[in-house]
């Protein structure tokens, strides 16, 4: 019997691998005058972009599929990989379908890449999205609302539709729906990880990066229905949470290798932007939906390395998540030279150690081709958890 879920995964895989962005070009053909706006990880307010008739396109680097030649010439050896492949793709014309790119404020690399973009592609729309690190509604919230208005205005000057509160309300509702289905998928993964592999969920979620929200919700729904019909047996694996990969993504084969080495990844922070807001974006009675969008970011944004934690304790929320999804341990996998993730690492490890959560850490690059070391390490980790458990 063929597995309908598998076919959906394959479809998602082909969208993820489509570096020429042909689905985006296709969308533009069907939406005359619509703009396709790329954005770097991790978070931008996608409902806003959709509300002004644009297609947000999440850009996640080049993975392991492309040879980096020119991209390398702009970055010193000690800089992470994602900007290289992003530049390589752009210089190869793979981003020709895009009308602009947003660079959210997640680290110095992405920020400066935005500056480079202005110099390399002066004709494209390039914007830096300064996400607030002040979470007071009247200070950071106000600033963020103005920041979003600026972007909407600038895009309007380039042909996008004017920002209409009703349209935004509708897009927020669509986003909430998607978030709810993703949450459902996440819950399913936690309950029966053998039913849906993390690598599959990865593709299904990531494919949405270049889709309209409502089509993505549809794909997600279809997938959930399909996997529920699978007949599969549980496997004797350990349950892990994988964190650190919020920006540059590990090569797909690496996720598979981790699964093969005896780990069920029951939670992760891949493509965190798609799940950045914890829960629905609530619009209060009579509230400007833009304020609601900002408020959701301020109050419900997930903890991650590029977000200031204020008075909280680093790692505490991860420990909570580990408990919630009944995981046996944590794998911290960060991109090499990723300052935000790697500076977080010792604090997170300390919190995990304190809470007696077994953990292991390694670094990767998106174009890594050899996983033997990582597989051995993850394998030794899963062996240890399996044979001796957490209480050690």
């Amino acid at each position: 019997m063929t597995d309908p879920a598998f076919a959906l995964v394959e479809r998602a895989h082909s969208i993820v691998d489509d570096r020429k962005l042909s689905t985006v070009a296709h969308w533009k053909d069907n939406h005359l005058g619509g703009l396709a706006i790329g954005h770097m990880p991790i978070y931008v307010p996608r409902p806003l972009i959709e509300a002004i008739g644009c297609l947000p396109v999440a850009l996640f680097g080049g993975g392991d599929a492309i040879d980096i030649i020119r991209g390398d010439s702009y970055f010193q050896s000690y800089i992470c990989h994602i900007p290289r492949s992003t530049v390589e793709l752009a210089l190869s014309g793979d981003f020709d379908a895009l009308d602009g790119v947003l660079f959210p404020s997640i680290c110095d690399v992405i920020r400066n890449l935005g500056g480079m973009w202005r110099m390399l592609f002066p004709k494209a729309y390039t914007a830096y999205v300064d996400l607030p690190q002040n979470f007071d509604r009247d200070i950071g919230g106000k600033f963020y609302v103005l920041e979003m208005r600026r972007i909407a205005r600038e895009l309007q000057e380039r042909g996008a539709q004017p920002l209409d509160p009703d349209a935004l309300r509708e897009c927020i509702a669509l986003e909430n729906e998607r978030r709810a289905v993703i949450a459902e998928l996440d819950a399913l993964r936690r309950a029966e990880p053998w039913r849906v592999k993390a690598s599959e969920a990865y593709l299904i979620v990531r494919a949405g990066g270049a889709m309209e929200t409502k089509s993505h919700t549809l794909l997600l729904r279809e997938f959930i229905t399909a996997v529920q019909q699978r007949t599969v047996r549980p496997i004797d694996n350990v349950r892990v949470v994988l964190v650190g990969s919020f920006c540059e993504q590990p090569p797909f084969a690496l996720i598979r290798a981790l699964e093969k080495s005896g780990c069920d990844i029951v939670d992760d922070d891949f493509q965190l932007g798609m799940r950045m807001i914890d829960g629905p974006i609530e619009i209060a009675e009579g509230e400007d939906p833009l304020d609601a969008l900002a408020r959701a970011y301020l109050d419900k944004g997930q903890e991650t390395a590029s977000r200031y934690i204020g008075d909280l304790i680093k790692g505490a929320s991860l420990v909570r998540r580990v408990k919630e999804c009944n995981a046996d341990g944590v794998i911290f996998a960060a991109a090499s030279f990723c300052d935000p993730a790697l500076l977080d690492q010792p604090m997170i490890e300390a919190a995990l150690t304190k809470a007696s959560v077994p953990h292991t850490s390694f670094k990767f690059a998106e174009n890594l081709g050899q996983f033997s070391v990582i597989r051995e390490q993850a394998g030794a980790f899963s062996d240890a958890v399996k044979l001796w458990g957490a209480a050690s």
Partner: protein
Amino acid sequence: MNIHLSAGIDAGSSSIKVAVTKSRAGGEAEILSTAVQRIRRRNVFDVVKATFDEACATAKVAPENLCYVASTGDVDAVSFATGHFYGMTTHARGALYLLPEARAVLDLGALHARAIRMDVRGKVLGHRMTSQCASGTGQFLENIARYLGVPLADVGQLSRESKQVEEVSSVCAVLAETDVINMVSRGSTTGDILRGIHLSIASRLVRLLRAAGADGVVAVTGGLAHDIGLVASVEELLGEEPARAKKPMPKLHVRTHPMSMVAGALGAAMLGAFRYDQIERRKQRVGAQTASAI
């Protein structure tokens, strides 16, 4: 308590190692047989089968009487395994069996070197391994030995006899060959050259051990454990360390065992028995629960 017969198959990149053991729950185990075959250019699956059959025959155990066949090393090379354990886990377990006082392992194979820190049960606490570079591995030594026309088995002794070290300047396993060519033409003795190579590899291994946080007795496992020259070089460098170090470092003692090369297979076999027991007990527990529910 039950007695379990189990086998471990360590599928390495250069050779296949198999061990058959008889264990009692609680960890006591007895080695019934071991077998090693080099792959050379043969089909890996065939070699695995042949080595496994050889070990079973020596142990006089029929394969169907094994409660668990555990693979380690290459996951895909053994099609008939009950379960798989990773190299670090099995080497740690095997090393602990061979040398119970060991709290660290230096596993030296054909294409990798790993330093592992473990607890009394053989649980991996920390580790460091070489990854993309062959400059500290068995293949490197094999290449040099082939170039010098020395059988692998003689390498260690020749190096031990050396009086004068030839320093190898290159860090690269391949470029070092040029150094070796030059040494040969200068008329250096084979032993001196080998010792130079050994010391160069050993310095990397010592760094690995330190980075892994090793302390106390270090068991050397893997094929290179047979290379007494390399082991002596590691000892030598460890001995020189305190003089150079600014801060006191944990004292390390390296040990080998005649069966070091099969440590991985041995560990796998024993862990297989352990796991079998664990699963059986869990089954019984679940069974008991179900029974009481009824």
